[in-house]
């Protein structure tokens, strides 16, 4: 493996022992801006990890991290809140690929993550702190602030200027940012990147393709509508019988 990416921060952690009361909140879908037929409205998402208030708060935060603009939809339309909810309720949330034995002690930046939080316990600890800190310093819930103030709050998390007792605010911010980017660009089977909004933004045609005949056609404009794993599986199923007879 060779592509160096020396600047990318390591993906961090989040979350908790679920126990959120399921609250049905209609997913905020908006027709995407690229002129294809509007997708069928998605089924309402039953929050597995977030409470209703938490979902409203983190959704607003994600929408500032990847905002809608006149050209393309943002994180909420792409289903990123639902993606992260599912991730936190699943094995990622429980820290399935973390070494979790003690003793825990502070290390250098070069030694990487050294806290006992799983992704789920981090979100669980940080969300009330985030809500409380914002209300205390700005007088309202994060989701009710205007966008400029929301950005200001997020910058104070990013720099650690917002001090939470329960968990480092900058760790929470970095985890939220990493998870938001994951939800925006991952295959739609994971619940985010709805209508392939993330892939259409950059022109990624989806994961299932062969290009060997096109590699040598330099500067080729390749505008194929993206396909995800689910569409590819449906096509496989459709072609299964004839392929078996080859």
């Amino acid at each position, binding site marked *: *493996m*060779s*592509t160096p*990416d*020396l*600047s*990318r*921060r*390591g*993906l961090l952690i989040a979350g908790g022992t679920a126990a959120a009361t399921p609250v049905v909140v209609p997913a905020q879908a908006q027709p995407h801006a690229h002129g294809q037929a509007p997708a069928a409205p998605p089924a309402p998402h039953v929050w597995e990890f977030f409470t209703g208030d938490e979902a409203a708060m983190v959704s607003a935060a994600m929408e*500032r*991290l*990847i*905002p809608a*603009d006149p*050209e393309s939809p*943002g994180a909420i339309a792409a289903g990123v809140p639902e993606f992260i909810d599912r991730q936190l309720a699943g094995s990622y949330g429980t820290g*399935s*690929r*973390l*070494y979790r*034995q003690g*003793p825990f*002690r502070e*290390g*250098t930046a*070069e*030694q*990487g*993550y050294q806290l006992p939080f799983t992704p789920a316990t981090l979100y669980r600890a940080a969300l009330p702190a985030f809500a409380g800190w914002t209300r205390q310093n700005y007088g309202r819930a994060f989701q009710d602030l205007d966008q400029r103030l929301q*950005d200001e709050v997020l910058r104070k998390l990013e720099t650690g200027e917002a001090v939470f007792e329960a968990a480092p605010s900058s760790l929470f911010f970095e985890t939220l*940012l990493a998870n938001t*980017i*994951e939800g925006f*660009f*991952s*295959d739609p*089977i*994971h619940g985010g990147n709805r209508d392939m909004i993330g892939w259409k*933004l*950059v*022109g*990624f045609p989806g*994961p*299932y*393709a*062969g*290009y*060997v005949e*096109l*590699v*040598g056609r*330099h*500067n*080729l*404009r*390749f505008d194929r509508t993206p396909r995800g*794993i689910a569409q*590819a*599986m449906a096509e496989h199923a459709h072609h299964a019988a004839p392929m078996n007879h080859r």
Partner: protein
Amino acid sequence: MTTRLPEVDVVLVGMGWTGALLAKELTDAGHRVVGLERGHPRQTVPDFQSPTMHDELRYAVRHGLMLDPATETVTFRNYQAEVALPVRQLGSFLPGNHLGGAGVHWNGQTWRFQESDFVLKSHLEQRYGRGIIQEGLTIQDWGVTYAELEPHYDRFEKICGIGGKAGNLRGQIQPGGDPFEAPRSDEFPNPPMPQPNAAALFTRAAAEVGAHPFPVPTANLSRPYRNPYGCEMQPCNACGFCERFGCEHFAKASPQVCVLPALMGKPEFELRTLCTVTRVEYDRTAKRATGVTYIDGMGREVFQPAGLVILCAFAYHNARLLLLSGIGQPYDPATGEGSVGKNYTYQTMAGVSVFMDEGTRINPYMGAGALGAAINDWNGEAFDHGGLGFVGGGYIAAYTTGGRPIEHHPVPGDTPRWGSAWKQAVKRHYNSTLSLSVHGSSMPHRGNYLDLDPTYRDSLGNPLLRMTFDFPANDRLMADFVTDKAEEIGRVIAAPRNGRVEASRRRGRYSVVPYQTTHNTGGTIMGTNPRDSVLNRYLQCWDAHNVFVMGASTFAHNPGYNPTGTVGALALWAARAIRDDYMRDPRPLVQA
């Protein structure tokens, strides 16, 4: 209560590339071989099938094919004065797990080392005088020569079906290939892959600055092929899912594609999965191993007696197994004595990004793991180091490995990290950014080593390996020198394309957080004598003649190339010695 099994001729610890090769070679000679693999069995069908294999989140980001740190990790510190802490989540390197090991999720960039690499200390002192090697660097000769390994490089390339163009055929420099490569006895078995736009832009610019570009030797197949084991391979279709993924097309060389079809089912071979070897049982008086102890999938302890034990685990696991088994003398950085854990090295990576006008399309998703072009003008001993203050070097390459967007969304360094401006920059630069890799050597230093951690343990209760590492001054100078060259080439690419060039230089201490490479080398090194090395030139333990160790842990330093080609060549070289010599008359093959 330990279950004792009947003795076998050979037990292999780990069934990745080297385990598969040794199993094939030794069963072909009629020996009874048991391969112990701590992960699950898996095959191209059904385990690597599309479309589900093409899931960036599951495999590239959540590390679906990698070793789970909850099972076993390493602890890390930069210097001895620090307290090492566990690598709690994978980052800088991604060791594989399960049958096939890292040979499943590698990219397929397949190189030979230079002739000078195997005799590096002698060569440097002869060419430049003794002062060329900085104080503290523990550079040594390997005990084997390139000429001895050449037939085995050739054979490994044919087993993998490598696509490339020879640059040095029996001493004759060939147009279109790498003029700095060591002489090869034969062409590559297959032609190079077609070259994408990024490689073409790099090739023209590199030639313009006087360098010698060529297509990277690739284990992504350029045409249908049958290898010497009779295994069938298919052409790569450039889907852009090599690194961190298994290949569903039978198009990337791997143990599953190139060796296991010819091995599984042979009556002489038995594969046992979910078996974690915890130690090699060692008779210190007789200086012999009696077999290995492992924990099976049910948690039972089992002793497998064997006439010959071959460690084929991922690089640093081999050092840990020797340390846990009490074989050899652990390296002591205070005195320089002992050899197990010595000369742990890595790879000194840097890079250059060229952000170009929107009309220049890289189409980064039309990729393959080893798809691209490179130059070796400033690698190893291809250039004169007189007056430069460092030894070693690296290649510069333009790879197009895939445009998977969670991890690939390059933006200029002054872009905000989130928000509208970030989103606009991601859209703007996704398809028009060319990345140059600077793939630098790693020289051994007396302060960089592996030993057992005093505090942290794995899920079975055994001490974790402790890694102490930082980049030596020599390697920082080297990386800056080669990155300057990459930047110069980047400027040539950028100039007519209204572009901008940004270097990611090797700065600060080594960190286990950002991904760099999975080229962890050294720790059980080969050499010319038992004071300085763990293994002799046949990869046989000086302290136990019936224990051999395979893999990149045997490298006395890590040159500026990817390791797998040399890992394969050394495994076949050792297999030949074991099969044709050792098994007929078990003894130390080199007198200490």
